Structure formats: structure tokens, C-alpha cells
């Protein structure tokens, strides 16, 4: 009986050694991917926000005083964002007088439009790319179909604001998480 057990153990050992010499893999590929939040580019020539795609041409829009300009993306299908969102704005902007205040809104649509957050920027007569950000107070948003970018003049005087969308993607916002 003991002899059979010894033979069995020896056989298993031999088989395991033989198996250990056979490759399970020819190779592995590990992609370490750094994922950034989606970017919504203003395209005034199409009057919409492009998702992760820069406009193909430049186009400027203007509005006066406390008027506003609002553009939004195509439907993204009712998606949930389970993190506290920061909106990182960029825009190429100028006005016909110095030190005018423009309010930037980051918005989303589920069954109606909501403001995620907003921030004010000071605009000069020189076309300038301004960057800023605002944080949403919400820890998550659900059933999101669209994102929107709204530019609202805060002047009560006779002021004209100009904003340019271009192939460099200067006018956009990116979603990030609040750290």
C-alpha cells in the first residue's frame, strides 16, 4: 500500500514539473490609462457643444449688456455621474469696454435644465483666453442627457461682449472631480 502511495506521489511530481514547463501566456499587455473628464467644445458655427471634438473653423458671437448666449451638446443618453463635478472653463473673449463682468454657467439637462455651478470673469477689450472653474455642490447627477455652456453679461451699461470658438478649442469646459 505504501509503495503505491509513493509511486503516486512521484507520478504527480513528474506531471507537475512537465506542466510547469509549458507557457500559459505568450505575452501580456497592460495598458495603464490615465482617464480625464470629457471636454465640451463650443462651436458657434454649428451653435452647439461638441463632445471631445474641436471645431473645424472659427466663429464669433456677440451679445449686449445682460443678454446671454447658451449652447448645449447632443443627447448623451441619460448617464449618471457619481462624483462631485468641477467645471473647468476656458473661453476666448473680449468686450468693447474694459473690465466688464461676464458670468459663465455649467449646466446639465435631465428632464429640465439645471445649473451645476457658475463663476464670474472680468473681460477686457483685448481678445484673451481666460480659464477658471467652479464646483458643483451635488455629489452625483443622474439621467443626464445634455450639458450646456451659458455666457451671461452682467453689465447694465451699453456693453457688447464677443466670444470666439475656434479650431484650437479655446472656448470649452471640461468635467473634473472636486478633489
Amino acid at each position, binding site marked *: 500500500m505504501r509503495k503505491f502511495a509513493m509511486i503516486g506521489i512521484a507520478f504527480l511530481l513528474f506531471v507537475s514539473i512537465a506542466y510547469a514547463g509549458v507557457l*500559459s501566456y505568450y505575452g501580456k*499587455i497592460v495598458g495603464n*490609462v490615465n482617464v480625464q473628464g470629457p471636454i465640451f467644445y463650443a462651436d458657434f458655427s454649428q451653435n452647439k457643444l461638441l463632445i471631445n471634438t474641436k471645431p473645424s473653423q472659427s466663429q464669433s458671437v456677440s451679445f449686449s449688456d445682460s443678454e446671454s448666449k447658451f449652447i448645449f451638446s447632443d443627447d448623451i443618453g441619460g448617464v449618471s455621474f457619481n462624483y462631485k463635478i468641477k467645471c473647468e472653463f476656458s473661453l476666448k473673449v473680449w468686450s468693447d469696454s474694459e473690465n466688464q463682468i461676464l458670468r459663465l454657467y455649467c449646466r446639465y439637462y435631465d428632464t429640465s435644465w439645471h445649473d451645476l455651478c457658475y463663476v464670474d470673469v472680468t473681460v477686457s477689450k483685448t481678445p484673451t483666453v481666460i480659464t477658471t472653474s467652479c464646483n458643483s455642490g451635488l455629489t452625483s447627477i443622474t439621467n443626464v442627457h445634455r450639458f450646456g455652456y451659458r455666457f451671461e453679461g452682467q453689465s447694465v451699461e451699453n456693453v457688447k461682449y464677443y466670444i470666439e470658438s475656434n479650431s484650437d478649442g479655446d472656448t470649452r469646459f471640461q468635467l473634473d472631480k472636486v478633489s
Partner: protein
Amino acid sequence: MKKSSAKFFGKSLLALVLGIIAVAGLAVAGLLRFYGKVVGTATVTQSVQVSSDNNNWLTCSDTTGGGCTITDTFSVVAGNTAYRTYYVKNNAGVSAGIKIDDESTPGEVEELYVAVVDTGTDCKSEGVSYTNILGEEGPLSEILDPGATKKICEKVKFKINTLEGSYDVKLTVIPA
């Protein structure tokens, strides 16, 4: 009563028998078991290898992917598709079957496609026939001709609501 024992030339029979056995043993030890031995030491080259640049080919140092793992770091915007290129070659003189599959893919990945194409093919060209290895199509099976080198095209898309951060997307190239 004293026991009697057989004697032979004055020696005991027992001693005689032991002596004969010892002589026989020496005689056997003196016979050749081998006229010679041939010990062949074979250095086996891995039949199928992978490379990130079609130049430096990786060889496995163990059976679980050690030594033959390509680590590729890249960035992608959530909702966008990233294309990556790797290479595989068959060193053997016979065809080799391979399978390409995913491993522990994070839930944030929306699409993961692979294709094996000729090295001159652009992974972004419309003619490339991709296999969705996250779906029922996967894994991708391919036969490599003897000595053939092919390009592995990977197409990965993260969901638009992916939280900013770092994620690992793993492919395995295994014997079919």
C-alpha cells in the same frame, strides 16, 4: 547438545555462500551497462513573442506572464476612443494559434476591441475588422503563419461618465 555445522575446506558453508555472492556482485559490477551516453541540451526559443515596437521581443521567464508583459501608459478623455499598437510574431516553422482576450477589465470601459492585421496596416483605417472581446464575440482567435509578424490593434473607449483617474486595461496573448 552441540549443533553440528557443515564444513568445506575447513570453512563454514555460510561463509562460503557469502563469498560466492560477493564475487558474483563484483562480476556484475564489472559488466558495462552503457556503451555511451548522449546528453542533448536543447535551448528552446519561445515560439510566439510580443513586442511594443516590432523590435524588442519579450520572452516569458515564467508561466504566468513574467518577462513578457508590455506596460503601456497613455491618456484618454472619457467618451473618446484610444488606439494602441503592439506586435506579435511566430518564430516557429509551423503555424501557431493564438487567442487575445481581456483580463479583469474595469467597468468604466465601454468598448474594448482588438484586431490582428498586417504590420503596414493603419489601426484607424476603416478596413480593419475588429473583434469586441468584451462581448460574445471574444476572445479573438488567430493563426500566425510560420515566421509571420503581425500588428495587434487595440481600440479602447471609456464611458463618458468615468471618474478621472488611472485604470488598467489588460490583454493576454495565449496559446490557442
